[in-house]
């Protein structure tokens, strides 16, 4: 289970990296049509939350200490917050749907929160790698 935790956290980190790429894809798609941010939305609202839940699950199954389990919950919370920030940014646009200073400031928090989430996932990965390998004591005595 420790290995599963390490693997799923690594995958989560990789998907996070791609999520930044997909954001850039959305920003640079011309014309900025209907589906520019489709990859970013699907990844952010389906794949990443699912991986976050798996991370928590595997941390519990790996009998990681409470602190580590707590850390694995943080990315899930930040991802929910991330969707909320995107909604709020759109709600502060003007009557014809154009951005305003306030909507852009809130939109900026979307990037900021994303960076924080990546850092937390890196932290989770480090902790997962430090977890004791089950049976390692036994192997140590027999060799």
């Amino acid at each position, binding site marked *: 289970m420790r290995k599963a935790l390490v693997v799923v956290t690594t995958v989560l980190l990789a998907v996070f990296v791609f999520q930044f790429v997909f954001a850039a894809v959305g920003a640079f798609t*011309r014309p900025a049509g*209907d589906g520019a941010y489709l990859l970013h939305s699907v990844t952010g609202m389906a794949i990443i939350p699912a991986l976050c839940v798996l991370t928590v699950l595997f941390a519990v199954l790996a009998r990681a200490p409470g*602190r580590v389990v*707590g850390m694995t919950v943080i990315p899930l919370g930040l991802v929910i917050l991330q969707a909320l920030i995107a909604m*709020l940014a759109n709600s*502060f646009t003007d*009557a014809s*749907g154009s951005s305003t200073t306030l909507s852009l400031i809130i939109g900026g928090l979307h990037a900021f929160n994303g960076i924080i989430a990546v850092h937390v996932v890196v932290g989770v990965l480090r902790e997962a790698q430090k977890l004791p390998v089950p049976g390692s004591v036994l192997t140590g005595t027999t060799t």
Partner: protein
Amino acid sequence: MTTGSIIALDIVIAVLAAASWLAAGATAATTALSAAGVSEPADTADHGRAGTASRRRLAIGLAVVAVIAILARVVTTIVLIRAGWWFAAEKVLIAGPLALAALLVAGPRVVRWVKGGRPPVVALLFAGYAQTAAVLVTVLHGYPVSSAAVLLAFGGVGGATMVTWRLAGPPPGRAVSRAPVVVTVAVITAGLVLVVAQRPAPAVPHAHGSVAEPAVAEPTRRFTLTAGTATVRADGREIEAWAFNGQVPGPPLTATVGDVLEVTLRNRDIDRGVTLHWHGYDVPNSQDGVPGVTQAAVLPGEEFVYRFQADQAGTYWYHTHAVSDIGVRKGLYGALVVQPSGTQVRDPAARGTGIEVIVPVHTLDGRSLPEAVEDTADAGTPVRLRLINTDSTTHRYALTGAAFRVAAVDGVDLNRPSALLNTAVLIPAGGRYDLTFTAPATPVGLFVDGRVVWSTGPVAVPPQAWPVLDLLTYGGSVPNPLPRADREFTLVLDRGLDMHGFLPRYAHTVNGAADPDIAPQVVRSGESVVFTIVNRSLVVHPWHLHGHHVLVLSRDGERARGSPLLLDSFDVRPGEVWKVAFRADNPGMWANHCHNLAHADQGMILHLLYG
């Protein structure tokens, strides 16, 4: 501040409160661990103690921020109650008790910690969970407050707290821990049972007996519209579109009051089917073009003949109502213009006594239509610009170089419209405004969101700062006692979790339900019906009732003081409350929905029914 921005601000504050409690709890946990000597090596003990002290200060500071945020939320909640109970119900009934519990549990323990007690990790995290649940209730199922939401929120907080207790706190005795576990599981189970049990019975049978409709005379105007995939050029690009007769927009249909229109719709290769809906034209129910309600969708190779009398003059449009979100977006729309009787049917491009220009604005695969046209207009020529917003979002229109009047809205003439200068107009999705003016000797330009679409010469982009016309105070009022309401409905627009078949979705909801679970509105023929439409979501909802124009009574409690407004498409912005009335004089089963077609697709559509 508008109620809409208070709604958003309230969520921001609630998120801040939740994040502060949770961060305070997490920080307190690190001090607890280092106090227990878990993660600090012995040689850095001194350094660790200093770190512990600063982290303790940080955690206490975060808790103070959370308390301030909760107090701020009391203020926003009071403002929202004053705007209407719909906006604040769940904040008072669910978020209030949760915030109070957070304060009562975490507050005294933080004070004790300040005085040198143990770090209250579990209490702070409990406060964080309570506040998080409060945010989630607002965002996921705010109105109406349901006992299921209450149970799931309270049960969720209890469950998360117990898990935390196990992981972080001192292990409670077996007998002590069993009771709350049982209670929590019971509460969550009851909540889930209620979610399943409370799902409203499926709405009306979508097939209904057709109502007797007057026979229509022999057609005097015949058109054929063939829907098919096509490659069209827009903005110098080839775009794969869905088109009527190979063009986007479809051909403009013109008629004169008194004509009988016969429109043959054929589908060449649109696999998902097409129909024709006459947006704003109050046709008999059988001609309304809503698949599954007034007819079956026209599949490839099939055809359907629409026939109706043109008895309303004005600017309208037609579009498919089958998979309408995609269909209209991809190009299945066109203008319908009916001239008053006594005038000859004329081509909009034909120059008679005046100039008429149809401007159907649309966004086709990211390209803005129509392309800019430069026209000529001799000084003194009367000009009528028929503006149609065929997109799903509001557009901002500005006319430079001439004083103009808004002669008609949604096809209906306004009473004594005054001349406007340097004023922008916002047209909701699906809405139409007719702007009239006399051409001056100098150039005139029409701009949509800052992009010129029609002009009579070189013109500068009008400033964004122009004031926006408020129709509710525009034009001359008519002494007209309000009709007594025989029947009233309240529609609270929001977002929420909804089970669509077996898949959960984040739907756009009316009174907490999404299509097809929204109860139909049943009225009797001849009744005067009043809708109160409340938008407690974060986005604008352009409301569109089929088959009727509605008379605007008030917005946010302020009576409409200008020309009588008979609309078929109107923007209900976040935080707004509109009261509109109509006479049930066109029997049938009518779609009643948000004309942001993506929202309609995600649940925001219901039906009005009478025979």
